């Protein structure tokens, strides 16, 4: 597929025409790995956009508060698909690796542009997968804000996939139509020769199905963090809700948020609009119990039975108009998620509470004592803990 050789001699043996003699790296394999990766990237991109819209709502595109499991499925799918993509991505890189050593490195401006677009695709896709996994591991080896960079580079991934498809489309079609035992590796001639190509076909299939098996294995041992029936298989799951006493993991503790003193202070008050409530007054208001999941942007999710006061009842008492977007503000002084906007579709939903209890018990400090927001179909980072006031945006 590559045009090797040229007037100037290659600078290193790896650039020589016969540096990669294996014929396993055939368009048959490259295109199939690319197709699987393309589907995975599409799933990750769409679910990523949905998650982004939850965190950065658009006035003209209000998101619904249902279904209750919406964000849980969305983000579970996002993370599971991203993790499963890793072996497919590595196999795809391996299948085209010799092209990295094409000589001459650049033949003309068009060739330079083509190589640049492929480089961008590989770098951006690798960036998304590496930062995604490191974020799950809470290993922040970078200076940028993860959600901002992950979102920006996602557009670069999708854009470079489209550009790559546009540039390589004839080869994609050719590779798709080729046979696993094709022995001629050339831009214009892909022939089947079962006798000569049998062993190569076996190796190509081993790489393809091995990568798919690796993706399946990764899913099996990690997806239990969001798919409870597979919790027992979660040998590599970053979270194990089934092992947590309340059933709901904790990302940010009261200690790390710096609220240990303020949440237990006798001076604690909740301000909603123009009304102020003590904890005793909140407990005296009509209480409801709802079963809702906490669904984290990191993919894990877990359901709990939350008890407390309907947010809409408090908004009415505080004189906040029905169509107002409000902001729940935490006692946490600073932090990316120390406050969260709540649009009317969520704030007026009967299942949206300012919760005082989880599983029949008073909220623990780390789960947001004394008051936390809980709403359906919403990222966990927006379920503000240690709420001190609710105000109109």
């Amino acid at each position, binding site marked *: 597929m590559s045009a090797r050789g040229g007037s100037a001699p290659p600078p290193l043996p790896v650039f020589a025409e016969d540096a990669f003699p*294996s014929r396993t790296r055939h368009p048959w394999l490259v295109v199939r790995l690319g197709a699987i990766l393309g589907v995975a990237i599409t799933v990750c991109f769409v679910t990523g956009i949905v998650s982004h819209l939850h965190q950065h709502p658009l006035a003209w595109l209000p998101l619904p508060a249902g279904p209750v499991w919406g964000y849980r499925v969305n983000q579970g799918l996002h993370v599971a698909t991203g*993790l499963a993509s*890793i072996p497919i991505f*590595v*196999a795809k*890189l*391996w299948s085209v*690796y010799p092209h*990295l050593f094409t000589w001459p490195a650049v033949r003309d401006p068009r060739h330079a542009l083509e190589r640049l677009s492929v*480089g961008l695709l*590989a*770098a951006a896709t*690798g*960036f998304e997968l*590496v*930062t995604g996994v490191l974020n*799950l*591991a*809470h*290993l922040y*080896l*970078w*200076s*940028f*804000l993860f959600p*901002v*960079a992950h979102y*920006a*580079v996602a*557009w*670069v991934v*999708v*854009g470079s996939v*489209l*550009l*790559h*498809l*546009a*540039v390589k489309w004839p080869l994609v079609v050719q590779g798709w139509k080729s046979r696993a035992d094709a022995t001629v590796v050339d831009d214009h001639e892909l022939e089947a020769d079962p006798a000569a190509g049998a062993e190569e076909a076996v*190796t190509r*299939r*081993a*790489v393809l199905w*091995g*990568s798919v*098996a*690796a993706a399946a*294995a990764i899913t099996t041992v*990690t997806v239990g963090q969001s798919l409870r029936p597979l919790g027992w298989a979660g040998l*590599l*799951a*970053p*979270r*194990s809700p089934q*092992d*947590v006493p309340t059933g709901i*993991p*904790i*990302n940010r503790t009261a200690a*790390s948020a710096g609220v240990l003193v303020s949440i237990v202070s006798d001076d604690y008050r909740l301000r909603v609009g123009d009304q102020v409530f003590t904890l005793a007054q909140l407990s005296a208001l009509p209480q409801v119990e709802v079963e809702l999941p906490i669904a984290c942007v990191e993919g894990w999710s877990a359901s709990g039975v939350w008890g407390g006061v309907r947010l809409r009842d408090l908004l009415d008492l505080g004189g906040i108009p029905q169509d107002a977007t409000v902001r729940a503000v935490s006692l946490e002084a600073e932090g990316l998620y120390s406050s969260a906007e709540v649009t009317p579709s969520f704030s007026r939903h009967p299942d949206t509470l300012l919760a005082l209890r989880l599983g029949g018990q008073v909220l623990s400090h780390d789960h947001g004592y004394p008051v936390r927001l809980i709403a359906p179909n919403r990222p966990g980072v927006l379920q503000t803990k240690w709420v001190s006031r609710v105000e109109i945006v």
Partner: protein
Amino acid sequence: MSGRRVVGGIGVAAIAFGGLQVLLNLEAASPFGLAAFLVAVVILDDLVLMPLALAAGWLVGRAVPPAARSSVRVALIVFAGLLLVGLPFALSPSRDGESGTLLTQPYVRNLGVLAAIIATGLALDLVRRRARRAREDRATATGTTPSLE
């Protein structure tokens, strides 16, 4: 051709939109840090992962009998995939952090368990293949067709 141009044009627009997101969030996106990380990822992929994969493939081609290579390749690819996901969890300093609910699994031990499961599966597959070959050899020697059980 025009369809490809449209798709390519949409691609360029999407890339530009991604770049714009960086420019609009200069402080949070840290463009130099982001660019450095992109380069680091390329180095990790092309100069660490790929040479390791090539070395593993070379070793399989030389150390493993042809009949077993396919199964060994699949087993190695599966374990390598699990390793790429599990290692960051195993090495994270945030393991079992202050909340006691993050990265709570014994990941190194579990990677060992998964390696044992894969090795067992590989051994069973190789035994199955050897038995099938023996049946086929016997059938060839006696001039009968092996049953399709």
